């Protein structure tokens, strides 16, 4: 089962798709998310790196500014003030 990932910034949707694995840097350290993760809501580090391993294709990385992340029911939403891929 794959994760449904959505990366949004204040102005637009940056990336949407299915992924095997998502890694993000929270204030406390890196967090890795795979399918079946418990519901989580976390603040991301200032200017932290985000890595998405899509189901098919190359890894996607981006830097996030003032972001946060929610996981529930295999849906991962990453929202940030600024994000670009």
């Amino acid at each position, binding site marked *: 089962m794959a994760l449904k990932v959505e990366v949004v910034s204040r102005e*637009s949707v940056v990336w949407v798709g299915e992924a095997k694995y998502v890694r993000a840097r929270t204030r406390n350290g890196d967090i890795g998310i795979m399918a079946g993760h418990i519901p989580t809501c976390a603040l991301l580090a200032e200017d932290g790196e985000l890595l998405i391993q899509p189901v098919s294709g190359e890894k996607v990385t981006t830097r996030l500014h003032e972001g946060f992340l929610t996981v529930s029911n295999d849906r991962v939403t990453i929202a940030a003030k600024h994000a670009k891929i």
Partner: protein
Amino acid sequence: MGAQIRVYRQKIASTSSMKKIFKAMEMIATSRINKARKSADAASPYADALTKAVTAIATQNSISHPLINRSANSRRSAVLVLASDRGLAGSYSASVLKKTESLIEKLRSEGREVQLYLVGRKAKSYFDFRERSYERAWEGNTDNPNIDMAVEIRDALLDAYSRPYEQGGVDDLHIVYTEFVSMVTQETTILRLLPLAVAEARDFGEQIVPGQQLEDDQFTQNSAFEFEPSPQEVLDELLPRYIASRLYACLLEAAASELASRQRAMKSAGDNADELIKKYKRLMNNARQAAITQELSEIVSGADALAS
């Protein structure tokens, strides 16, 4: 007689040039509505993500935050008025201001003081003219708001909200703005933004994933949610952003409504100009006909006088 025809000709010329201006303004408004609605659509995924996160936290009853719960006993209210910068938008600003007046009246009758925050030159000049005081006013860009404007307004409002009553703080915040229902219907609405009424868990489940039973179940047992670093910190961070995104949504909606009313006002102005032109043309033709008739009768009567 010739003078009369000339006057009508001038009137027709000036009316048709006005008609061109109305037409242009109508077209500008139409294209800008689409732009405003597009930016509203583009901003909504971020707003949804924020709503989702905030609701997840807020449904954990153990959490309390000054932005969510406040004492029911409110002594001073802030009112944010979203009107337009420019006129020529029909009754847009007037109806917002009318609604504001009735809200102020209502709040005062409940024994509260009212602090005004104004957006738009029309709102500012309304209160300036009546020499009534307001806390702050923002001008410019009401038909094309950006997120920075929303953040600036939020900072001013949160500052007032966080101060205690004795230092001029407010206990709640209302927004008067115009909701964009459709191109033909816009409704002046009062929204209480603070203290926040965060959507219920059930609403939220329906809002994000319609009809998914599993999602619903998860939110009824929201102790399952894990927060990093801590629920309180997440809440402290996200609530101000949530407010900014709500404000931004209101600004965008008000902008779309303003443009829609301007478009409608300009359309009817153009139609009226058409009718005026038609009327003047008829009058001009009458005058020309009368001049010809008069000349003819002068000739005829002159000839008659010579013949007899």
